[in-house]
């Protein structure tokens, strides 16, 4: 077995505060052949569930060369129905096998019963929660279940939401801070998600300047709670006279989000950063180009600090 790079699981922090990329199926071969310089790889945990097979073998080969972050989309940490324990067991098996540098999922719900039915369904999507005390209780309870099973801190990512939830009782930042402080989890800050939500709020006429709104969020976030940053592209759709910005992970990071990332680095310091790309994947070289841009910005901040 090839020796692995060491990682510290106990802190929930990635030791290398550099830049990584989301590693998806079309790039498995290219990356293993070229082994580009990257601080870490991030994969979707669910794509590697199971006891064996080719995909898991490829991940283990990648793990021999890079720290690996496991990013989940299926736990549904905000689900009133609770966490699916079979799903959690699959994740625990994968964590034991891969020894990831980070394990993360989202501030969302995914599962519950449809009206009049007893069976719990899974939406296959990240569905929004109100920033309410009740949602906080559910999140803290479920995050605790996951952390107890995995015996390590979880990272929890802020969401892009396309419908407005009723019953907000605090701001998103207050909500995330409270979640991290009460559960001991860390935060995965997706700057693109903040910007997408701000753009949609602006389209609804709720705020005048999306970039200023995100900068304000970055000003008030507690840097000590943030363990990773995500950067991705988004898309604007028009339908029936209504515009909506969708976090499709199918484009390069836009200039406004790059500017916000530069601002975040100044406010928050050195934090592991990921370039995410999930739909319409370009050649690996494009992702590496985006990662190099993020790394160059990080270096500039370090040099001027």
């Amino acid at each position, binding site marked *: 077995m090839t020796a692995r790079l060491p990682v510290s699981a106990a802190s929930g922090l990635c030791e290398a505060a550099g830049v990584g990329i989301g590693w998806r199926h079309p790039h498995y071969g290219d990356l293993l052949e070229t082994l580009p310089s990257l601080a870490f790889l991030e994969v979707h945990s669910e794509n590697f569930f199971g006891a064996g097979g080719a995909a898991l073998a490829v991940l283990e080969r990648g793990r021999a060369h890079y720290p690996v972050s496991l990013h989940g989309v299926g736990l549904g940490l905000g689900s009133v129905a609770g966490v*699916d324990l079979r799903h959690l067991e699959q994740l625990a098996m994968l964590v034991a096998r891969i020894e990831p540098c980070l394990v993360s999922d989202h501030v969302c719900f995914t599962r*519950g019963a449809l009206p009049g039915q007893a069976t719990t369904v899974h939406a*296959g999507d990240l*569905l929004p929660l109100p920033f309410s005390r009740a949602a906080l*209780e559910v999140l803290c309870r479920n995050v605790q279940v996951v952390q107890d099973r995995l015996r390590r801190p979880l990272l929890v990512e802020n969401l892009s939401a396309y419908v407005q939830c009723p019953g907000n009782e605090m701001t998103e930042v207050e909500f995330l801070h409270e979640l991290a402080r009460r559960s001991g989890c860390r935060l995965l800050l997706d700057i693109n998600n903040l910007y997408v939500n701000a753009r949609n709020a602006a389209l609804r006429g709720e705020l005048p300047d999306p970039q200023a709104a995100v900068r304000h969020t970055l000003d008030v976030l507690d840097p000590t709670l943030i363990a990773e940053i995500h950067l991705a592209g988004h898309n604007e759709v028009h339908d029936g006279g209504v515009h909506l910005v969708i976090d499709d992970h199918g484009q390069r990071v836009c200039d406004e989000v790059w500017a916000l990332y530069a601002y975040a680095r100044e406010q928050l310091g050195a934090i592991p950063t990921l370039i995410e790309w999930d739909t319409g994947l370009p050649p690996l070289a494009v992702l590496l180009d985006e990662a190099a841009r993020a790394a160059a910005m990080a270096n500039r901040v370090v040099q001027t600090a």
Partner: protein
Amino acid sequence: MSAQTASADTALARWQQSLLAALWAPTHDEALDQLATPGAPDRNFMWRGIAAYRSHAAAQAVRSLGAAYPVVEYLVGPENFEALSRLLWRERPPQGGDLAQWGAALAAQIEVLPDLVADLPFLADVARVEWALHSMTTLGDAQAEPASFALLAQEDPENLRLDLAPGTACFSSAWPVVTLIEAQRSRSSLQVPSSETARVWRSGWRPRLCNAQPGEPAFLRAVQEGKSLGAALGSAPGFDFNAWLAPAVQAGLLLRVVLNPARHA
């Protein structure tokens, strides 16, 4: 729990159930009725947001099912496959967050669609075999032990047990399912039905498919039930073990021969 907390929990549960109901509503308008008050100022944005979630769910359904059923998709065509995927998502929703595990019920869903059965009577059988090929990809890995095959010449078959490759199974069909899957033939070339029994297994990491030999399904079933080689041969009259053995080893179907612990206890 205080009355106030219970009430907040109930409101959160109600919100989650309403959004799920909106995603599974038959039409966009019915979906919107789950969440928005008619005439409310944000109705247009709510409509667009729900539409985004609903179209994402539909895309997930097609993507997940397409990964498992490429031959079914080829046989029905992309538009019909999209409709079939949406129908399965609505009628038999995912129950877990690993969407690669969703879709096992496609064959059963096809069988309750009389027009599809009349048009493509072999489709449910093709779906059953494709699901077996898909679901074996994440089973635990197993290595062959060639040295153990010498036991076949040394021991009484009643004292031996066979270990088979992950995912080994047989599917009997009134239709040429193996030929269909291997060739992805067009409907026009399949007007004359001919029965085939598919044998599926995983060789290394690769799902494999071939025609089963006469008597092989009964033989493999007995082996997988843990019966001795002698007993398995007894349950499969007409099965030619000698003709089966060398190809089974070469194809990675037979992994090892072990002394039956029940006999050697």
